[in-house]
C-alpha cells in the first residue's frame, strides 16, 4: 500500500495491466450482446428507408490511426447500402483516406459481385482542399470531381452523370475523425442546403455532433460502440449476415472494451481513494 501512496508505483505495471485487460478478451474471443441505442436506430432507418437504388455519398474522412474504431463502422454501412441496392459514391477529404476507400470497395465487390463500377459505385478518391471542396461540391459537382480514380470522366458514368450539385444525392454518410470531417459536412453541405446526412465518428468527436442533431444531422454513430450496435441492428434486420464473421468486427472489439473500461474505472476509484487517505493523513498530522 505504501508504494501506491508514495507515488513509487512504476507506471509500467499499469501498462502491463492495460495490456492484459485488452489482450485477454481478444485471445479468449469474449463477446457480449449488443442492444442498439435510439441514435443507432435513427442512422439505420435513414439508410434503410431510402428507396432502392438511391444515391448515397460515403465520405471516408479518416486515416489508419482511427481505423480501429471506424473501419467496422464503414464496412457495416457499405454492407447495409449494398443490401438495399443503393448506389454509392465514395470520396475522401483526407490524404490517407484513399486506400481506405479501396479496401472497402474490395470488400464490396467480394461480398456483392454484381456491383458494377461506374454504375453502382464509384471511387472519386482524395479531394484536396478540406472545406473548400465541400463548397464547390454544392455549386458544381463535376468541376470538383471531374474524374474518378480510374481516370474516367464523371460526366460519362451513369452514377454521377446526372449530378450537378451534391444536394441531388439522397443521403450523405460522413465517417470521420477530426478535421475536416462530419462537422464540416454539416456546416457546408447538410445545414445550409438541407441535405439528409448521418454521421459516424470516433468516440472523441461524437459528443460535439450532438449539438447538430436532429435538425442539421439526422443522427450519429459514436466510436466502436456505435459500430457494434449498428452491426447488431443490421444483423437483426438481415439475418443472412449472421454467418459472415467479417460483419461482426465491432461486436468482437466490445469484449476488450469492457475489460479496458473496468480497468480505467478501477484505477480512477483507487487513485481517488488513495488521494483521500493521503489527504486525511495530512490533516490528522
Amino acid at each position, binding site marked *: 500500500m505504501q508504494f501506491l501512496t508514495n507515488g513509487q508505483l*512504476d507506471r*509500467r505495471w499499469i*501498462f502491463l495491466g*492495460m495490456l492484459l485487460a*485488452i*489482450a485477454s478478451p*481478444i*485471445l479468449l*474471443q469474449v463477446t457480449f450482446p449488443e442492444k442498439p441505442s435510439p441514435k443507432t436506430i435513427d442512422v439505420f432507418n435513414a439508410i434503410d428507408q431510402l428507396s432502392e437504388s438511391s444515391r448515397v455519398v460515403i465520405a471516408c474522412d479518416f486515416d489508419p*490511426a*482511427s*481505423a*480501429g*474504431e471506424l473501419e467496422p463502422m464503414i464496412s457495416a454501412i457499405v454492407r447495409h447500402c449494398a443490401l438495399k441496392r443503393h448506389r454509392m459514391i465514395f470520396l475522401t477529404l483526407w*490524404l*490517407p483516406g*484513399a486506400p481506405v476507400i479501396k479496401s472497402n470497395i474490395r470488400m464490396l465487390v467480394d461480398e456483392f459481385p454484381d456491383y458494377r463500377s461506374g454504375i453502382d459505385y464509384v471511387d472519386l*478518391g*482524395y479531394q*484536396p482542399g478540406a*472545406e*473548400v471542396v465541400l*463548397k464547390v461540391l454544392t455549386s458544381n459537382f463535376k468541376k470538383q470531381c*471531374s*474524374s*474518378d480514380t*480510374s*481516370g*474516367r*470522366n464523371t*460526366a*460519362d458514368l451513369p452514377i454521377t452523370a446526372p449530378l450537378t450539385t451534391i444536394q441531388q444525392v439522397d443521403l450523405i454518410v460522413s465517417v470521420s475523425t477530426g478535421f475536416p470531417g462530419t462537422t464540416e459536412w*454539416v*456546416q*457546408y453541405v447538410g*445545414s*445550409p442546403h438541407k441535405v439528409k446526412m448521418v454521421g459516424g465518428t*470516433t*468516440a*472523441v468527436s*461524437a*459528443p460535439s455532433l450532438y*449539438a*447538430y442533431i436532429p*435538425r*442539421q444531422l439526422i443522427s450519429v454513430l*459514436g*466510436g*466502436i*460502440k456505435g459500430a457494434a450496435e449498428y452491426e447488431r441492428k443490421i444483423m437483426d434486420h438481415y439475418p443472412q449476415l449472421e454467418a459472415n*464473421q*467479417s460483419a*461482426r468486427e465491432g461486436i*468482437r*472489439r466490445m469484449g*476488450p*472494451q469492457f475489460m*479496458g*473500461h473496468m480497468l*480505467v474505472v478501477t484505477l480512477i476509484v483507487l487513485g481517488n481513494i488513495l488521494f483521500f487517505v493521503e489527504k486525511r493523513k495530512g490533516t490528522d498530522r
Partner: protein
Amino acid sequence: MKADKLLAGILLVLGLLVIIRASSGDMGMVYTRAVSTPSDAPPELRWTKYEAATPIESNEPGVAVSWPRTLGLWIAALLTLAIFSFLLGDNVLYKLAEALFVGVSAGYAMVAGIYDGIVSKLLSKLAPGLIRDSLIPGIPETVEPDWLYVIPLILSGMLLWRLSPKGGWISRWPIALFIGTTAGYRMVTYFEADFVGQIQNTIVPLLVFAADGSFDGVQSIKNILMVTGVLSTLTYFFFSVEHVGIVHRVSRLGIWFLMITFGVGFGMTVMGRIALLAARLEFLFDDWLWLIDPLNRRS
C-alpha cells in the same frame, strides 16, 4: 533492476517462441490469388492482379504464398512492436520507427499532392491533351487549355519561394489567398450552422404534447434541462459582466453543465483509445501470430 531483468527474460522467451513457430510456417504468411485482368481486354493488354486469399484456399489454382506481402506483414508487426517499445522508455527502435514514419508520411503526402492536386486540378487545365494521353484518359477531347490557370501556376511558384533564404515575402501572396478564402467561407458558414443554427436548435417547446394531445413529461423535462443548460453555459461565457449575485449562481450552474459535457468527452476519449489498442493487438494475434482466427480464414 530485478524487474528489468525479468522483463528482458520474458521478451527473450517470447522471441524464441515466435522464431520457432515462424520456422514451421505456423504464422505470419500471406496468401494471394493470381487473376488475369481485365477480363474483357485482349490477351496482350492483360496483366496479373494478386487478390487477397486465405490459407484454407491454398490448394485452389492460382493461390500461393505472396512473399512480398508476407515480408510486409512481418515488417508491419515488427514496426508495431517497435512503437510499443516506447512504453518501456525512449529507445533506438522507437526512434528508428518514428524517423521512418516521418519520411514515409511526407513522401506519401507529396505524391498525393502532385497527382490529386497539381495533375488533376492544374495540369489538366493547362495541358489537357497531354494529361489525357498519359494520366487521365477520361478528359474529353473537346476540352481546351484554360489560360486563367496560369495565375495559380504563378502563385504556386511564389509559394515554393518560401524555401529560398531570400525573398520570403514572395510567398505572402498565395498565403494571403489561403487566409482570405478560409476567412470568407468560414465567416458565413459558422454564422449559419453554428450560431443561427444552434440558436434554432435551442428554441424548443418547454411543455411538450404528443400528437394525440397527451402531455409528454419526460421530453418536457429534457427540453427544459437543455434550454437551461445552454443559457446558463452562455452566461458563464459572458466575461464582460461581473459574475456576482444571480449571474454568479447561473454561471455556476453553467459550469456544472460544462463539467458534465467534459466528463462525457473524457469517457468517450477513453473508449476511443482503448478501441485503437484492441485493433492493433488483434492485428498482432490474428494476422501475424495466428493465435486466433475470428474470421475462419485458417480453419
